[in-house]
Structures are given as structure tokens and as C-alpha cells.
């Protein structure tokens, strides 16, 4: 049985990855999950300098999901290169580094620094609803998204995944824009902007007022967008948003995702990623599928 998938020349042993920001750099979950079992570990968004993130409360639970407004706290790319990459290098899994910034220059700075390292791919987060350049995120305007993609591609040494925001009118247009900019892969969805109000204290549940929604509640929107993006572009699509089980992962693969990423589910069950690897194999066995690649986008 073949579970290997190919993302712009990078071969993953299976299509299961982690969602940026939900798995740290793998150190904490590595105590509970064998990182060698994962197709790739995607690390928390990293900027050129240390970022303190947002005030607390930063997280809150909602029906079937959660809101977060971490605000991309991170130690900065220097500490990350020194500490987190060597840690992950110990494992037989691909390393994908999620990159964030406030200006185009910030992004380019990080991408150039990472070019000196042997991480496998870069995932460019132009869609964080908690940090913005102007009124909208970079990932909400197709022209801006195309431009930043092209600029990053010019300096990037590794294949570039552009991570799209679901907070847009037309996801196909966004996917096409980053493809036009030269993206090697597109990943989606980032979180959907949401809000929770504490009616007893009459205040926002999050200090940041709004936060990004994730978890199983967002899955139908994510599957729809992954389907639409996969229909719109030729480059591979990484699907995520609410994946809790292997069945959920299969839904994304059938909708057109070459790989899938598991986020909030890690908080619910720290072993979810490994269980999904097993579950995908079980699905293939049940239906006598020899190669996972036959299933990618099989529902049209």
C-alpha cells in the first residue's frame, strides 16, 4: 500500500501533517506522539524578530471548536533556527516552517534566513486574522497576495506553500492569485474570524475581541474551500480545518487535498495525528485502495 504523497517535489511518507500553531515545534507533543510517524511537522508562525503576541485571554471555547487570538507570539527566527530546527532534525519527518510578518520585508527577511537552513518547505501565513497590515490581512486581497507570493518566490530556497484565509468572498480567486504569483503549493483554511461575548460579565471573551475559529465546527466550510481551490488551481492543495478523525481527513483528500493537517484536534486528543495515519491506512485497506494518490480529488 502506498501512502506517500508529493508536494512540489518533497515526498511525505504519508499525507498527515500538523497545523501551524497547534503543535509548537513538536517538542511538547513529541512526548506523546512518535514524530517519525508524521508526514510533516509544521511549526508555529515565526517572524524575523521576537513577537510578544496578544494580551490574555487568548483562547476560548465555542460550540464544536475554539477561538484563538494568540497574536503570533514567537521567539524570532534566530532562536528558532538555533533551537527548533535541530530538534526536529532528529526525526524522520519533513519540516515545514510557517512564516509570518507585518510587512513584505519582514517575510522576505525570514524566508532568506531559512534559506540557509535545511528545512524542507516554507508555509507563508498571509492569513492570520489576529495580525493585520491595514484593514485586511495580506491574504484577503488577490493582488496583494499575488505580489507577496512573487516576491517570496524570488528569494526562497525551498518550495513555498501559501496559506490562505477563509475570510474572503471568493477562495478560487485567491488560490489562482497565489498560483499566478508562483506558489508551489496552497494550504487552507486558516481560522475564520469569530467572536464570543461573556453575557454575564458583559465583555468580550478574548482580550482581542475577535479571534480565529478552528475545530470541527469549521470543517464543512474548509472542505468546500479546499474543493473549490483544488478545482481552481493545478498546484497541490493542503487541506485543514476541523480534522478530528481519519474519516475527516479522507473527506479533505477526496475533495482534492494532497495532504492534510491536524490542528485543534491535538488539544482534544494529543495522539490524533498518529491515529489518523492508522485510520487512513485502514480506510484504504477496507476499500482495497493501493495508492492514496488515487483518492486525491476523487469526488468531483
Amino acid at each position: 500500500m502506498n501512502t506517500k504523497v508529493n508536494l512540489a517535489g518533497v515526498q511525505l511518507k504519508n499525507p498527515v501533517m500538523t497545523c501551524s500553531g497547534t503543535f509548537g515545534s513538536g517538542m511538547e507533543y513529541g512526548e506523546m506522539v512518535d514524530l517519525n510517524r508524521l508526514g510533516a511537522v509544521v511549526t508555529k508562525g515565526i517572524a524575523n524578530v521576537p513577537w510578544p503576541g496578544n494580551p490574555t485571554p487568548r483562547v476560548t471555547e465555542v460550540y464544536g471548536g475554539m477561538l484563538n487570538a494568540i497574536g503570533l507570539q514567537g521567539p524570532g527566527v534566530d532562536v528558532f533556527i538555533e533551537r527548533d530546527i535541530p530538534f526536529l532534525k532528529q526525526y524522520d519527518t519533513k519540516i515545514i516552517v510557517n512564516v509570518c510578518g507585518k510587512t513584505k520585508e519582514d517575510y522576505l527577511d525570514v524566508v532568506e534566513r531559512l534559506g540557509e537552513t535545511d528545512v524542507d518547505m516554507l508555509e507563508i501565513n498571509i492569513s492570520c486574522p489576529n495580525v493585520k497590515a491595514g484593514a485586511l490581512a495580506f491574504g484577503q486581497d488577490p493582488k496583494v497576495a499575488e505580489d507577496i507570493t512573487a516576491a517570496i518566490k524570488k528569494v526562497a530556497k525551498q518550495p513555498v506553500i501559501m496559506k490562505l484565509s477563509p475570510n474572503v468572498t471568493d477562495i478560487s480567486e485567491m488560490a489562482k492569485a497565489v498560483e499566478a504569483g508562483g506558489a508551489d503549493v496552497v494550504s487552507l483554511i486558516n481560522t475564520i474570524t469569530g467572536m464570543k461575548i461573556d453575557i454575564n460579565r458583559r465583555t468580550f471573551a478574548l482580550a482581542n475581541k475577535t479571534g480565529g475559529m478552528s475545530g470541527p465546527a469549521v470543517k464543512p466550510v474548509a472542505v468546500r474551500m479546499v474543493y473549490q481551490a483544488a478545482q481552481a488551481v493545478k498546484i497541490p492543495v493542503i487541506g485543514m480545518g476541523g480534522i478530528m478523525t481519519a474519516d475527516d481527513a479522507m473527506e479533505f483528500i477526496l475533495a482534492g487535498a494532497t495532504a492534510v493537517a491536524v490542528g485543534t484536534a491535538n488539544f482534544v486528543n494529543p495522539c490524533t495525528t498518529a491515529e489518523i495515519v492508522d485510520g487512513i491506512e485502514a480506510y484504504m485497506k477496507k476499500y482495497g485502495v493501493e495508492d492514496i494518490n488515487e483518492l486525491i480529488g476523487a469526488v468531483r
Partner: protein
Amino acid sequence: MAQKKVRAAIVSQEKLAEGIFSMWLDAPEMAAASRPGQFIAVYTNDPSKLLPRPISICEADKEKGRLRIVYRIAGAGTLEFSGYQAGDTLDIMGPLGNGFPLKDKKAFLIGGGIGIPPMLELAKNLECEKTAVLGYRDAETFLADEIGKYAEVVIASEDGSVGTKGNVIDAIRAGSLKADVIYACGPTPMLKALKAYAAENGIECWISLEEKMACGIGACLGCVCHSKDVDEHSNVKNKRVCKDGPVFLADEVELLSSEEQRERIAGGCMCGTVKVKED
């Protein structure tokens, strides 16, 4: 691999006071590994509620392989827990966090309200001379007798119905009590007051903090508190309550409201590279 998620059977459940429940859980490995001041992540059985509830370890019976938690009904999750009986099961993960360091000095164990439970296991484990100063709302002094088996107990109550009328500091002052180290858990205003009291009196002071959590193990950065200095892990002035805490040296952390945090971040003193937008 000390941390682990397991399905644990409830051994017993008991109501201690209005809205306050005590539950013993069958969890041998966690009981064996636990230290006073650590907590467990308790999951609800309701699939629409995904995140675990952090609850302090109130007692660990290492022989019987059981953990005790004492909790207040604060919302839907704890309400659900209160409805379970012996034999029902819950997913739990732990033990989590660092716990209190056990010093061999004359100690205050200070608990306010639902911050009292961890003081029982701490009292059992501290070998030194110790006074537990417990702050209650009213005469429902849950756990006071049990803690009394291991430490001298002094009580404060908001309504004055038992002990000193007022808070734990009032009780300390009223009794002219003295100690060389403080271990405390309770509401933020109490911790703030204790931090100031300890600084004034040059006492070593350990406080256990609370923050909303998602992962509970240090990966998501949801639960940070604010540190005086740049933290080694975060490389900014943030520490993770779930992993680096929940117990901190009072001097190391700043107890800030959301507003104060916002100002601090905007002011750049956390390395201030990002302005928070209120979108």
C-alpha cells in the same frame, strides 16, 4: 512520558459545600507521578465541548492509585462533572505543570476560595512548620478540617461568620502570623496583595496562576502570563502557565489586566514589535 491522556473511572463524588464538589479518580500512573501544585486537564464527555478544564490536584493517593480534585461549578463543564457518579468515566491528562517547590522553611499555605484544594496535598507533603491561611466566602469552610490534620489552620471569611472577617491578609495581620516562605493559590487580587506583602516583608513567595488554556502542555501559547524578564523558552516576556507554571515566584511575574497587558505590549517593553489591532 509523564503526561498522558487516559480514561479514568470516578471512584467517588461528594458535595462539600454549595456548588463545591470533591471527586476521586482512579488514575494510578498520574497519582504516582504527581507533585503538589500540579493540575490535571479534565475533558467533558460532551462532544460539543472540546477543550479540557484545568483542575488542581487536591490529593494524590499513590498507594491506591487515585487522584482527588475539588472543584466549583463555574460553568457548563464543571456542571457536567458534578452530575457524574462513581463508575462513570472521564478523560483526563496529567499531571501537568511544575508544582510547588518543597522548601524546608516555616511556611504559609494560603488558599482563597477554589484556590484552597491544592493546599491539602501541599500540606501533606511539606515536612516543615506550617500554617494554612484559608479564605472563604462564608461558614462553608470546605477542606479546612482535612488540611487541619497536617497544618495549623487559620480562617478568614468575607462575611465574618468564621475566623477573621476579611481576607487572608487580614487574618495574617490579625494573628500577627509569621513565615519564611509563602505558597499561595487563589483569585488574582489576593495574589497581588500577597505579592506586595511578601515584597514588603522580604518573604519568598510562590503563587499559582490561572489562565484560559487550550493544549495544557505548552504548545499553543494560549495561557501565557507576563514575566519580569525575557523568558528562555518564549524569548519574550511571556511564560506559559500550563508548562512553566502554574506556580511562579511572585517576583518573576506581573499580574496584569488585559488593559495593562495591551499597554505594555503597545509600549514596546515586551520587545514591542507588534501593535495590537482591535479588529
